[in-house]
């Protein structure tokens, strides 16, 4: 089931109603219902792949208990290794097997050995990169003693499969989400209203902005050779806004839906395009993934505790792995590496001028926006050659009249709307007066309804 579908619009109120009706019987029943709803939500897409979630849940539940019960560090390590191997194994088989097999075969071919290609040809289970990371972080936290293993299997299963954030995050930590699931919840009016507002704003971003831009972006990225430098450059900007609205729209809906069920999720985006350097960008973009890599990869590697060279190595590894996390294609690795290099340059060499603060911010904004924009082709194109060709055509920049200029209105709209709510990403309604708020809601709803497609565009991050 996807958020921008009529099925979800029917599912959500029913789930909401049942959830609060059953509240009086206690949190255990509420969690059982939430688990069932989450499995229905996921199973709507494919019941078979639900088994992977169940496997991941059971393995981590057992592993965490064994870690918690063991006194011997070697035994703890073994159970942790089992959890990591199973979760990464699931990812490896379902997401990366064909990619690595293909890359290996190409490598052999390049050195003159004609190797056969072994391909599993399995479709990628939706959300596998998200829930495997979420469950893995739980066992790692238990291993390091940051939390105790959860006894209630239903509550733990709900933590793994909690439907609002199951398929595309935010990737939650057990330390934050599990306590909310295990304690009794009461409906709070304020939280409910905030939830609905976020759902509305998220839907607007996805259905109106992202999907409209997708119609302009797809033909250009599908055939970069057929378009001039101006159009390609503008299409990169459009794609940047499209993916922002697509993914942050999803996160808003997820956070908003969770609020309706009395649960708070972490923020995933904080106006990433209003940034003056790449380090700041990564503090605002896909925050739950960035912090996950920080806590479970960067810091265990040594973080910034060693020499500058070691810090640089650790940062670069994180960006490469982060690129690969996005998809089984070298294009994502290159995209991660580009960001890694930019991050390192900024980290080691960039010192904002204290004298010319405004000027340095303006220059920083322009350079950061440009570099992020020019890296998008590596994220979006199907091959490195295609992305490189696109960047080359943009850099050579033969100015020609712009095609698809109508997309600028969507770019302007979202930037303006984000500017109005800049101080708080969780309060997407910039008006205090009741009438203005209602008018604003109405405009958003009408815009969503008139753009509601009979063939919904999937969220981009579902493929990861």
């Amino acid at each position, binding site marked *: 089931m996807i958020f921008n579908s*009529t099925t979800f619009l029917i599912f959500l109120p029913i789930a909401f109603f049942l959830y*609060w009706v059953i509240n009086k019987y206690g949190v255990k029943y509420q969690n059982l219902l939430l688990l069932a709803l989450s499995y229905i939500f996921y199973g709507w897409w494919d019941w078979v792949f639900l088994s992977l979630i169940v496997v991941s849940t059971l393995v981590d539940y057992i592993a965490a208990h064994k870690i918690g019960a063991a006194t011997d560090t070697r035994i703890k390590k073994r159970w942790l290794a089992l959890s990591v191997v199973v979760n990464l194994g699931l990812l490896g088989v379902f997401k990366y097997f064909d990619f690595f097999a293909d890359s290996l075969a190409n490598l052999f071919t390049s050195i003159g050995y004609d190797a056969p290609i072994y391909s599993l040809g399995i479709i990628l289970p939706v959300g596998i990169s998200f829930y495997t990371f979420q469950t893995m972080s739980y066992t790692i936290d238990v291993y390091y003693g940051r939390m105790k293993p959860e006894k209630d299997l239903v509550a733990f299963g709900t933590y793994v499969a909690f439907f609002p954030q199951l398929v595309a995050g935010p990737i939650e930590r057990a330390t934050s989400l599990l306590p909310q699931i295990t304690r009794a919840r009461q*409906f709070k*009016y304020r939280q*409910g*209203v905030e939830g*609905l507002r976020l759902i509305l704003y998220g839907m607007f971003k996805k259905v109106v902005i992202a999907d409209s831009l997708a119609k302009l972006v797809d033909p250009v990225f599908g*055939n970069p050779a*057929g378009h001039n430098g101006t159009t390609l450059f503008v299409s990169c900007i459009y794609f940047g806004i499209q993916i922002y609205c697509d993914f942050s729209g999803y996160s808003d809906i997820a956070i908003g839906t969770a609020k309706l069920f009395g649960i708070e999720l972490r923020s995933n985006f904080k106006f990433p395009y209003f940034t003056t350097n790449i380090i700041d960008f990564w503090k605002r973009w896909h925050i739950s993934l960035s912090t996950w890599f920080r806590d479970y990869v960067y810091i265990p590697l040594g973080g910034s505790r060693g020499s500058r060279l070691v810090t640089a190595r650790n940062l670069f590894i994180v960006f490469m792995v982060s690129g690969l996390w996005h998809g089984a294609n070298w294009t994502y690795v290159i995209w991660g590496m580009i960001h890694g290099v930019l991050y390192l340059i900024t980290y080691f060499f960039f010192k904002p001028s204290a004298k010319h603060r405004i000027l340095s911010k303006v220059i920083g904004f322009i350079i950061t926006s440009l570099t992020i924009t020019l890296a998008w082709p590596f994220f979006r194109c199907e091959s490195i050659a295609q992305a490189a060709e696109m960047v080359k055509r943009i850099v050579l920049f033969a100015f020609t009249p712009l095609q698809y200029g*109508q997309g600028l*209105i969507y770019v302007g709209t979202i930037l303006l709307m984000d500017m109005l709510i800049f101080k708080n990403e969780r309060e997407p309604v910039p008006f205090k007066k009741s009438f203005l708020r*209602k*008018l604003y*809601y*109405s*405009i958003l*709803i*009408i*815009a969503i*309804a*008139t*753009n*509601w*497609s*009979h063939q919904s565009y999937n969220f981009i991050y579902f493929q990861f």
Partner: protein
Amino acid sequence: MARFIKNILKFVLVLPLFYLAYLLLVACSTIFTLKIEALTFTNTKTAGSNYQRTIDLDKWIAKTSKNKGLILGSSTAYKNINPYVLSERTGVDFFNNGSSSQCIFESAYLLDYVLENTEIEYLLLETFPGAWDMVGYETATDWVVNNYKPQRAYVFNTVKHANSLNLWLFYSYFYVKRSIPYTKDYLHYSPDEDNYKGLGFAYTRDSEFERVNSTYKSYDTISPLNKRSLERIINICREKNIKLILVMAKIFNADINKTILTQYDVPLIDCNNFQIDSTYYYDSHHMYGRGTDSFSRWLGDEFNQLMLK
């Protein structure tokens, strides 16, 4: 909780009023500019979807010629069949009313409309197998947007069958807008630069679409509604003594269950028998304009042979 639900219900009650105000505002804005309408609702003009064609259909209906032939079908009809060449080859006054992904049930509604207003001698029902089990969204949108009389029964019926929220909103908008005096429609038609050539025919230039390799597809199902509509069309034609010819679109790289059409005792022209290089097509079934003359001549010859029989 009660306060929460009460406030939602209150807002739901107010929402239609806001929508009505919004709708009127956008409709009135077309007196000055069409840009707001384009952004909020839509004004489509693609190859086969344009306002001029609706006007041309009514002009053709109003003509008093006795030897009229109507072509119905999907984009493989309006892009591939040149009615000028076909008319010249057959001596029949053809109008091509194909539209994007036109389903057979939509063709049936359109036939009803045409027969209410004129008499026809021939009906070429071109069916694209890919549309056999579609719901007709694209054609419904075209007819709602590019139609100066949205209240026509065939428009309403197709919207009803496509049953999409945004389509209903478009329908209500264009219905209201066309009731307000001085509002304007998006009428873009310049025969010199446009690919619309009149009589419902759209000429696809090579520069418009890059050629893509088609992937293998199988077409073997027809929705119950389309099947019923096909049988209804056959019965109407028998009752009104209209010579019906089914035309199966040519598709490269496909497996088509032809019995869906051949099971009826109706003449059928299978365009897959037309021999032409695939480079005349930009995908598995859409033809570049440069191939349409020879295809239409071939179709005309097939038509003539069937008529002789």
